[in-house]
């Protein structure tokens, strides 16, 4: 497998329709998070890492390989 490097996404803002769609499917909080500039998101994420140190995922299987359900079925 070869990994091809492609240009970065443009930094132009995404239209409101994108965030409206996220609000519809993921909720207002998720849409508000997505609207934050990347630096703001990083700042907030750092705050969470600083203040809440809990396991991300307690599954014995990684999520991409099925997570708990995949494990239970095996």
């Amino acid at each position: 497998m070869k990994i091809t490097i492609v240009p970065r996404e443009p930094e132009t803002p995404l239209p409101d329709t994108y965030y409206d769609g996220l609000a519809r499917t993921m909720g207002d909080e998720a849409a508000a998070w997505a609207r934050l500039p990347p630096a703001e998101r990083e700042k907030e994420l750092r705050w969470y890492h600083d203040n809440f140190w809990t396991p991300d995922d307690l599954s014995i299987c990684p999520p991409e390989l099925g997570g708990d359900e995949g494990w239970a079925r095996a």
Partner: protein
Amino acid sequence: MPPPPPHAAAVSAPLDFLRIFAGLLRAEGIPFAITSGMACVHYGLQQTTKDSDWIIPADALPRLVALLERKEGELPPWRVSYRQIFGAPLDAEYMAHGWTSHLSVWDHASSVEHKVDLFSKPPRVRPEEMQTDEEGWAVGHVVAQMKKTDRDKDWPIVNGLGQRLTERGNPLGLLHLTDIPALRLAWQAVRPEAREALAGRRPLLRHLARTPAAGDAELELLLLLERRIWERVNEARHSRYTRAWREFYRRWSKSADFAWPTPEEFWRQQRKLSRAVREHGLPADPLGDVPRESLVAEAVARLTAMRFDAEEVKSLLPPVADLLP
């Protein structure tokens, strides 16, 4: 937002570690892509994660192992350990066939544990579509394919990545959208000559082209069935890995000197695990000679046993090259 507590310097490291590790890989000329949770944070679609998931081609794994071994001998010394979970050694023979490998890394004495998950053959990603941007972030299409798992929480992210791709003018977004209004708009916006190719990869899109157009209720049912197809095919594939690993682990754990993981240096762990998988019969390729079509047929059979209509299931099946590349 209150000020960080005094221990912040020790525990605010996941994002820093991500950059350090990416920089090391880059300096060693090891190709990589950051995917899954951290990539979703990068794309603004996930709010928390600490673990990092990396795609590294199998032929670059010897260089990665050498890097990790070297970092244990440098100052400040890293500590690198396999985790006690399902997974294979960082060995090209295994990783090239879809196994994953799971490490813990401590990059200085007071470091928190960094969980590093590695793929060489990411599930559901066509090799020719394996792309990153210049910073190493897996492109949205790759992340979306990997997120088509059995977990409910991943599917809104798949849709979000699809929306993002669509807004950026990438027609591959249509392969991931599940929000009906967005799906209809995106379908209308795509060039007619591109539609057939997209519908070839996602037959559900043909229902958008029908006259009169499929109603929303019908589309919702089709979307549900399409998702079940991805889930059941994933299960048919993945269960062979977990079963193989459990059997291997059972055999290995009965050996007289069994202890895993050990507090040893990484190079010793690497040698021990590489030997164990061969001595105790972990298959390098659990799918082996199993035709991919038969795994898909197994998934279809499970769905029809759940009283989904067989013809409808077949009419929605994505190509095997996307389900099980």
